[in-house]
Protein backbone atom coordinates (compact mmCIF):
# COMPACT_ATOMS: atom_id res chain seq x y z
CA UNK A 1 0.00 0.00 0.00
CA UNK A 2 1.42 3.37 -1.00
CA UNK A 3 0.80 6.63 0.79
CA UNK A 4 -2.02 7.59 -1.54
CA UNK A 5 -5.25 8.01 0.40
CA UNK A 6 -8.44 7.06 -1.43
CA UNK A 7 -11.41 9.38 -0.86
CA UNK A 8 -13.91 6.61 -0.35
CA UNK A 9 -15.05 4.43 2.53
CA UNK A 10 -14.33 1.05 0.95
CA UNK A 11 -12.05 -1.68 2.33
CA UNK A 12 -9.15 -2.13 2.66
CA UNK A 13 -8.83 1.65 3.11
CA UNK A 14 -11.67 1.74 5.60
CA UNK A 15 -13.61 -0.74 7.68
CA UNK A 16 -16.93 0.71 8.85
CA UNK A 17 -18.06 -0.92 12.07
CA UNK A 18 -21.66 -1.89 11.35
CA UNK A 19 -24.19 -3.99 13.22
CA UNK A 20 -23.31 -6.88 10.92
CA UNK A 21 -19.66 -6.63 11.98
CA UNK A 22 -20.67 -6.37 15.62
CA UNK A 23 -22.67 -9.58 15.37
CA UNK A 24 -19.91 -11.39 13.49
CA UNK A 25 -17.23 -10.28 15.93
CA UNK A 26 -19.22 -10.31 19.16
CA UNK A 27 -17.01 -12.85 20.93
CA UNK A 28 -13.77 -11.36 19.63
CA UNK A 29 -14.78 -7.93 20.83
CA UNK A 30 -15.93 -9.30 24.18
CA UNK A 31 -12.58 -11.09 24.55
CA UNK A 32 -10.66 -7.88 23.80
CA UNK A 33 -12.72 -5.88 26.27
CA UNK A 34 -12.15 -8.47 28.99
CA UNK A 35 -8.55 -7.23 28.96
CA UNK A 36 -9.68 -3.97 30.52
CA UNK A 37 -9.14 -5.84 33.78
CA UNK A 38 -5.52 -6.22 34.95
CA UNK A 39 -6.17 -9.72 36.35
CA UNK A 40 -7.47 -10.87 32.97
CA UNK A 41 -4.42 -9.39 31.24
CA UNK A 42 -2.24 -11.51 33.51
CA UNK A 43 -4.26 -14.63 32.81
CA UNK A 44 -4.16 -14.06 29.06
CA UNK A 45 -0.41 -13.51 29.05
CA UNK A 46 0.14 -16.62 31.15
CA UNK A 47 -1.66 -18.88 28.63
CA UNK A 48 -3.05 -17.22 25.50
CA UNK A 49 -4.66 -20.36 24.10
CA UNK A 50 -6.43 -21.37 27.27
CA UNK A 51 -7.71 -17.86 27.88
CA UNK A 52 -9.07 -17.52 24.35
CA UNK A 53 -10.68 -20.97 24.39
CA UNK A 54 -12.39 -20.10 27.65
CA UNK A 55 -13.59 -16.89 25.99
CA UNK A 56 -15.31 -19.02 23.36
CA UNK A 57 -13.20 -17.93 20.39
CA UNK A 58 -13.11 -20.16 17.32
CA UNK A 59 -9.91 -21.82 16.10
CA UNK A 60 -9.78 -19.27 13.26
CA UNK A 61 -10.11 -16.36 15.67
CA UNK A 62 -7.46 -17.79 17.99
CA UNK A 63 -5.11 -18.21 15.02
CA UNK A 64 -5.62 -14.58 14.02
CA UNK A 65 -4.69 -13.41 17.53
CA UNK A 66 -1.68 -15.74 17.67
CA UNK A 67 -0.50 -14.34 14.33
CA UNK A 68 -1.08 -10.73 15.55
CA UNK A 69 -3.06 -10.41 12.33
CA UNK A 70 -4.70 -7.11 13.19
CA UNK A 71 -6.21 -6.66 9.75
CA UNK A 72 -7.72 -10.14 9.83
CA UNK A 73 -9.09 -9.49 13.30
CA UNK A 74 -10.81 -6.28 12.19
CA UNK A 75 -12.22 -8.09 9.15
CA UNK A 76 -13.50 -10.81 11.48
CA UNK A 77 -15.50 -8.19 13.37
CA UNK A 78 -13.18 -7.47 16.27
CA UNK A 79 -13.76 -3.81 17.14
CA UNK A 80 -10.66 -1.64 16.81
CA UNK A 81 -11.01 -0.38 20.39
CA UNK A 82 -11.17 -3.97 21.64
CA UNK A 83 -8.30 -5.20 19.46
CA UNK A 84 -6.26 -2.24 20.73
CA UNK A 85 -6.53 -3.71 24.22
CA UNK A 86 -5.24 -7.03 22.91
CA UNK A 87 -2.34 -5.24 21.24
CA UNK A 88 -1.54 -3.25 24.38
CA UNK A 89 -1.56 -6.37 26.53
CA UNK A 90 0.91 -7.96 24.10
CA UNK A 91 3.23 -4.94 24.22
CA UNK A 92 2.11 -3.48 20.92
CA UNK A 93 0.07 -0.34 20.25
CA UNK A 94 -2.14 1.49 17.76
CA UNK A 95 0.78 1.99 15.37
CA UNK A 96 1.24 -1.76 15.02
CA UNK A 97 -2.41 -2.17 14.10
CA UNK A 98 -2.28 0.76 11.68
CA UNK A 99 0.94 -0.44 10.05
CA UNK A 100 -0.52 -3.92 9.58
CA UNK A 101 -3.64 -2.38 8.05
CA UNK A 102 -1.61 -0.14 5.76
CA UNK A 103 0.86 -2.91 4.92
CA UNK A 104 3.84 -0.93 6.11
CA UNK A 105 6.50 -1.14 8.75
CA UNK A 106 5.64 0.81 11.89
CA UNK A 107 8.58 3.17 11.36
CA UNK A 108 7.48 3.90 7.81
CA UNK A 109 3.91 4.69 8.90
CA UNK A 110 5.15 6.91 11.71
CA UNK A 111 7.32 8.77 9.22
CA UNK A 112 4.37 9.31 6.87
CA UNK A 113 1.90 10.46 9.55
CA UNK A 114 0.07 12.75 9.60
CA UNK A 115 -0.85 11.66 6.07
CA UNK A 116 -2.00 15.04 4.86
CA UNK A 117 -4.82 15.49 2.43
CA UNK A 118 -6.71 18.68 1.71
CA UNK A 119 -10.29 18.42 0.53
CA UNK A 120 -13.55 20.16 1.31
CA UNK A 121 -17.05 18.65 1.17
CA UNK A 122 -17.95 17.73 -2.39
CA UNK A 123 -14.31 17.59 -3.42
CA UNK A 124 -11.90 14.87 -4.60
CA UNK A 125 -14.59 12.48 -5.79
Amino acid at each position, binding site marked *: *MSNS*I*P*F*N*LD*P*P*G*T*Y*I*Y*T*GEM*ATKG*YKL*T*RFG*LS*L*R*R*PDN*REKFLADEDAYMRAAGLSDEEIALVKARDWTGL*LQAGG*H*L*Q*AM*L*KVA*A*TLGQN*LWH*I*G*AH*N*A*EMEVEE*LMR*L*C*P*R*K*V*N*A*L*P*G*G*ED
Partner: protein
Amino acid sequence: MAKIIGGFAISHTPSMGMEYDKGMANGFSPHWQPWFDGTRPMKDWLARMNPDRMVIVYNDHLNHFDFDAYPTLAIGIAPEFRQADEGWGLRPFPSLVGDVDLGWHLTNKLVRDGGFDLTVCQDLAIDHGIYSWMPYLKDTPWDTPIVPIAINMVRHPIPTSQRLYNFGKSIRAAIESFPSDERILVVATGGMSHQISGARFGIANEKLDRYFLSKLKSYVQELVDLPQEELMRLGGTEAAELAIWFAMRGALTDNIDEVYSYYTFPAITGCGVIAFEEKG
Protein backbone atom coordinates in the same frame (compact mmCIF):
# COMPACT_ATOMS: atom_id res chain seq x y z
CA MET B 1 -32.73 29.55 37.01
CA ALA B 2 -29.39 28.18 35.90
CA LYS B 3 -27.66 29.90 33.03
CA ILE B 4 -25.36 28.72 30.22
CA ILE B 5 -22.36 31.02 30.13
CA GLY B 6 -20.62 29.48 27.14
CA GLY B 7 -19.14 26.32 25.77
CA PHE B 8 -16.12 24.75 24.21
CA ALA B 9 -15.23 21.78 22.05
CA ILE B 10 -11.93 19.93 22.12
CA SER B 11 -10.38 16.85 20.52
CA HIS B 12 -9.39 13.84 22.60
CA THR B 13 -6.99 10.94 22.04
CA PRO B 14 -5.36 8.37 24.33
CA SER B 15 -1.93 9.54 23.15
CA MET B 16 -2.77 13.10 24.20
CA GLY B 17 -3.02 11.89 27.79
CA MET B 18 0.09 9.74 27.65
CA GLU B 19 2.12 12.51 26.02
CA TYR B 20 0.95 14.97 28.65
CA ASP B 21 2.09 12.67 31.46
CA LYS B 22 5.44 12.04 29.77
CA GLY B 23 5.83 15.73 28.97
CA MET B 24 5.16 16.84 32.54
CA ALA B 25 7.86 14.43 33.71
CA ASN B 26 10.50 14.89 31.02
CA GLY B 27 9.47 17.74 28.73
CA PHE B 28 7.08 17.60 25.79
CA SER B 29 7.93 15.93 22.51
CA PRO B 30 8.32 18.33 19.55
CA HIS B 31 5.21 16.78 17.97
CA TRP B 32 3.04 17.56 20.95
CA GLN B 33 4.54 20.80 22.30
CA PRO B 34 2.47 23.00 19.93
CA TRP B 35 -0.79 21.42 21.08
CA PHE B 36 -0.05 21.87 24.77
CA ASP B 37 1.13 25.44 24.12
CA GLY B 38 -1.89 26.12 21.93
CA THR B 39 -4.38 24.91 24.52
CA ARG B 40 -2.76 26.80 27.41
CA PRO B 41 -4.99 29.87 26.83
CA MET B 42 -7.96 27.54 27.25
CA LYS B 43 -6.85 26.73 30.76
CA ASP B 44 -6.67 30.43 31.61
CA TRP B 45 -10.04 31.04 29.98
CA LEU B 46 -11.65 28.17 31.87
CA ALA B 47 -10.27 29.51 35.15
CA ARG B 48 -11.60 32.97 34.33
CA MET B 49 -15.04 31.63 33.36
CA ASN B 50 -15.04 29.64 36.59
CA PRO B 51 -18.23 27.69 35.83
CA ASP B 52 -20.23 26.17 38.70
CA ARG B 53 -20.96 23.05 36.64
CA MET B 54 -19.93 21.52 33.33
CA VAL B 55 -22.18 19.38 31.16
CA ILE B 56 -19.77 17.33 29.04
CA VAL B 57 -20.93 15.54 25.91
CA TYR B 58 -18.34 12.93 24.95
CA ASN B 59 -18.00 9.43 23.59
CA ASP B 60 -16.90 6.24 25.30
CA HIS B 61 -14.49 3.99 23.40
CA LEU B 62 -15.68 0.63 24.74
CA ASN B 63 -13.97 1.41 28.01
CA HIS B 64 -17.03 1.48 30.26
CA PHE B 65 -19.74 0.02 28.04
CA ASP B 66 -19.48 -3.13 25.99
CA PHE B 67 -21.65 -4.61 23.28
CA ASP B 68 -23.79 -6.57 25.73
CA ALA B 69 -25.45 -3.19 26.13
CA TYR B 70 -24.16 -0.16 24.28
CA PRO B 71 -26.37 2.92 24.68
CA THR B 72 -26.85 5.41 21.89
CA LEU B 73 -27.30 8.26 24.39
CA ALA B 74 -26.38 7.85 28.06
CA ILE B 75 -26.10 10.19 31.04
CA GLY B 76 -23.92 9.67 34.10
CA ILE B 77 -25.64 10.45 37.41
CA ALA B 78 -23.41 9.74 40.39
CA PRO B 79 -21.48 11.61 43.09
CA GLU B 80 -18.24 10.69 41.32
CA PHE B 81 -16.97 9.07 38.16
CA ARG B 82 -13.85 6.95 38.29
CA GLN B 83 -11.25 6.72 35.56
CA ALA B 84 -11.63 3.73 33.22
CA ASP B 85 -8.76 1.27 32.73
CA GLU B 86 -8.44 1.24 28.94
CA GLY B 87 -6.23 -1.82 28.95
CA TRP B 88 -2.93 -0.25 29.97
CA GLY B 89 -3.58 0.86 33.52
CA LEU B 90 -4.70 4.09 35.18
CA ARG B 91 -3.11 7.52 34.99
CA PRO B 92 -2.40 9.34 38.26
CA PHE B 93 -5.53 11.46 38.37
CA PRO B 94 -8.51 11.55 40.72
CA SER B 95 -12.11 10.69 40.00
CA LEU B 96 -14.37 13.36 38.53
CA VAL B 97 -17.00 14.90 40.78
CA GLY B 98 -20.60 14.50 39.62
CA ASP B 99 -23.76 16.51 40.24
CA VAL B 100 -26.65 14.17 40.96
CA ASP B 101 -29.31 16.90 41.21
CA LEU B 102 -28.46 18.45 37.86
CA GLY B 103 -28.14 14.99 36.32
CA TRP B 104 -31.65 13.96 37.35
CA HIS B 105 -33.07 17.31 36.34
CA LEU B 106 -31.53 17.02 32.87
CA THR B 107 -32.78 13.45 32.59
CA ASN B 108 -36.35 14.37 33.54
CA LYS B 109 -36.43 17.27 31.12
CA LEU B 110 -34.66 15.53 28.24
CA VAL B 111 -36.79 12.38 28.46
CA ARG B 112 -40.16 13.98 29.22
CA ASP B 113 -39.95 17.27 27.34
CA GLY B 114 -37.09 16.88 24.91
CA GLY B 115 -37.90 13.46 23.52
CA PHE B 116 -34.42 12.10 24.19
CA ASP B 117 -34.61 8.73 25.92
CA LEU B 118 -31.34 8.63 27.79
CA THR B 119 -29.86 5.53 29.38
CA VAL B 120 -29.14 6.50 32.99
CA CYS B 121 -25.81 5.26 34.39
CA GLN B 122 -25.48 5.44 38.17
CA ASP B 123 -21.99 4.05 37.88
CA LEU B 124 -19.85 5.24 34.99
CA ALA B 125 -16.12 4.91 34.42
CA ILE B 126 -14.78 7.61 32.15
CA ASP B 127 -12.06 7.14 29.56
CA HIS B 128 -9.75 9.41 27.58
CA GLY B 129 -12.85 11.05 26.08
CA ILE B 130 -12.61 13.35 29.11
CA TYR B 131 -9.47 12.26 30.95
CA SER B 132 -7.09 13.03 28.06
CA TRP B 133 -7.66 16.79 28.14
CA MET B 134 -8.99 17.56 31.62
CA PRO B 135 -5.54 17.41 33.28
CA TYR B 136 -4.12 20.25 31.19
CA LEU B 137 -7.26 22.40 31.23
CA LYS B 138 -7.87 22.22 34.96
CA ASP B 139 -5.61 21.84 37.96
CA THR B 140 -6.57 19.28 40.58
CA PRO B 141 -8.53 19.09 42.78
CA TRP B 142 -11.20 18.86 40.12
CA ASP B 143 -13.89 20.49 42.22
CA THR B 144 -16.22 21.63 39.43
CA PRO B 145 -19.00 19.02 39.30
CA ILE B 146 -19.80 17.58 35.90
CA VAL B 147 -22.64 15.79 34.20
CA PRO B 148 -21.20 13.48 31.53
CA ILE B 149 -23.32 12.51 28.54
CA ALA B 150 -22.02 9.71 26.32
CA ILE B 151 -22.90 9.42 22.64
CA ASN B 152 -22.37 6.20 20.66
CA MET B 153 -19.65 6.77 18.09
CA VAL B 154 -18.16 3.27 18.01
CA ARG B 155 -20.78 1.26 16.15
CA HIS B 156 -23.07 2.36 13.36
CA PRO B 157 -25.79 3.52 13.28
CA ILE B 158 -24.63 6.62 15.17
CA PRO B 159 -26.97 9.55 15.87
CA THR B 160 -27.37 12.02 13.02
CA SER B 161 -25.81 15.48 13.16
CA GLN B 162 -29.24 17.12 13.20
CA ARG B 163 -30.29 14.89 16.09
CA LEU B 164 -27.26 15.92 18.13
CA TYR B 165 -27.77 19.58 17.25
CA ASN B 166 -31.37 19.29 18.45
CA PHE B 167 -30.13 17.44 21.54
CA GLY B 168 -28.00 20.49 22.34
CA LYS B 169 -31.05 22.76 22.06
CA SER B 170 -32.91 20.49 24.48
CA ILE B 171 -29.94 20.54 26.86
CA ARG B 172 -30.19 24.31 26.83
CA ALA B 173 -33.90 24.26 27.63
CA ALA B 174 -33.30 21.74 30.40
CA ILE B 175 -30.49 23.77 31.99
CA GLU B 176 -32.51 26.97 31.81
CA SER B 177 -35.29 25.36 33.84
CA PHE B 178 -32.94 24.12 36.59
CA PRO B 179 -33.91 25.97 39.77
CA SER B 180 -30.56 27.39 40.85
CA ASP B 181 -28.36 30.34 40.04
CA GLU B 182 -25.57 28.16 38.72
CA ARG B 183 -23.42 29.28 35.79
CA ILE B 184 -22.97 26.30 33.51
CA LEU B 185 -20.53 25.56 30.72
CA VAL B 186 -21.41 23.04 28.00
CA VAL B 187 -18.51 21.03 26.60
CA ALA B 188 -18.21 18.71 23.62
CA THR B 189 -15.29 16.46 22.85
CA GLY B 190 -14.38 14.32 19.87
CA GLY B 191 -12.94 14.64 16.37
CA MET B 192 -11.42 16.26 14.35
CA SER B 193 -10.15 14.49 11.20
CA HIS B 194 -8.71 11.09 11.98
CA GLN B 195 -8.91 7.44 11.13
CA ILE B 196 -7.22 4.83 13.28
CA SER B 197 -7.85 1.65 11.32
CA GLY B 198 -7.74 0.46 7.72
CA ALA B 199 -5.19 1.39 5.10
CA ARG B 200 -6.30 5.04 5.39
CA PHE B 201 -4.87 5.04 8.95
CA GLY B 202 -3.49 8.46 9.78
CA ILE B 203 -5.49 10.55 7.30
CA ALA B 204 -5.20 14.22 8.20
CA ASN B 205 -7.37 16.81 6.52
CA GLU B 206 -6.40 20.22 7.83
CA LYS B 207 -8.48 22.02 5.22
CA LEU B 208 -11.63 20.20 6.35
CA ASP B 209 -10.91 20.79 10.02
CA ARG B 210 -10.23 24.51 9.58
CA TYR B 211 -13.37 24.80 7.44
CA PHE B 212 -15.33 23.18 10.28
CA LEU B 213 -13.83 25.51 12.91
CA SER B 214 -14.54 28.57 10.74
CA LYS B 215 -18.22 27.67 10.28
CA LEU B 216 -19.20 26.45 13.74
CA LYS B 217 -20.15 29.82 15.19
CA SER B 218 -22.18 31.46 12.43
CA TYR B 219 -22.90 28.77 9.82
CA VAL B 220 -23.48 25.72 11.97
CA GLN B 221 -26.52 24.57 9.97
CA GLU B 222 -24.29 24.19 6.88
CA LEU B 223 -22.12 21.80 8.87
CA VAL B 224 -25.10 19.99 10.35
CA ASP B 225 -26.47 19.46 6.84
CA LEU B 226 -23.29 17.73 5.66
CA PRO B 227 -23.78 13.97 5.43
CA GLN B 228 -21.67 12.30 8.12
CA GLU B 229 -20.37 9.98 5.39
CA GLU B 230 -18.86 13.06 3.74
CA LEU B 231 -17.01 14.00 6.94
CA MET B 232 -15.80 10.40 7.17
CA ARG B 233 -14.84 10.16 3.51
CA LEU B 234 -12.74 13.33 3.67
CA GLY B 235 -11.59 13.32 7.27
CA GLY B 236 -11.55 9.65 8.22
CA THR B 237 -14.09 7.44 9.96
CA GLU B 238 -13.56 9.00 13.38
CA ALA B 239 -14.20 12.49 11.98
CA ALA B 240 -17.84 11.51 12.55
CA GLU B 241 -17.19 12.44 16.19
CA LEU B 242 -17.39 16.07 15.07
CA ALA B 243 -21.16 15.56 15.23
CA ILE B 244 -20.79 15.68 19.01
CA TRP B 245 -19.69 19.30 18.67
CA PHE B 246 -23.20 20.14 17.41
CA ALA B 247 -24.62 19.23 20.82
CA MET B 248 -22.45 21.94 22.40
CA ARG B 249 -23.20 24.48 19.67
CA GLY B 250 -26.90 23.67 19.85
CA ALA B 251 -26.86 24.43 23.57
CA LEU B 252 -25.64 27.97 22.88
CA THR B 253 -27.54 30.88 21.40
CA ASP B 254 -26.45 32.75 18.27
CA ASN B 255 -25.53 35.71 20.48
CA ILE B 256 -22.03 34.44 21.23
CA ASP B 257 -18.42 35.51 20.86
CA GLU B 258 -15.82 33.09 19.59
CA VAL B 259 -13.11 33.75 22.15
CA TYR B 260 -10.45 31.24 21.11
CA SER B 261 -9.61 28.54 18.65
CA TYR B 262 -6.49 26.55 17.90
CA TYR B 263 -5.61 23.72 15.57
CA THR B 264 -2.65 21.45 14.89
CA PHE B 265 -1.65 17.92 13.92
CA PRO B 266 0.44 16.33 16.69
CA ALA B 267 0.54 12.80 15.25
CA ILE B 268 -2.38 10.99 13.67
CA THR B 269 -5.33 13.04 14.84
CA GLY B 270 -6.38 16.52 13.82
CA CYS B 271 -6.55 18.30 17.17
CA GLY B 272 -8.70 21.37 17.52
CA VAL B 273 -10.27 23.46 20.22
CA ILE B 274 -12.82 26.27 20.05
CA ALA B 275 -14.43 28.32 22.80
CA PHE B 276 -17.54 30.49 22.86
CA GLU B 277 -18.95 32.90 25.41
CA GLU B 278 -22.56 33.96 25.65
CA LYS B 279 -22.87 37.75 25.36
CA GLY B 280 -26.14 37.98 27.29
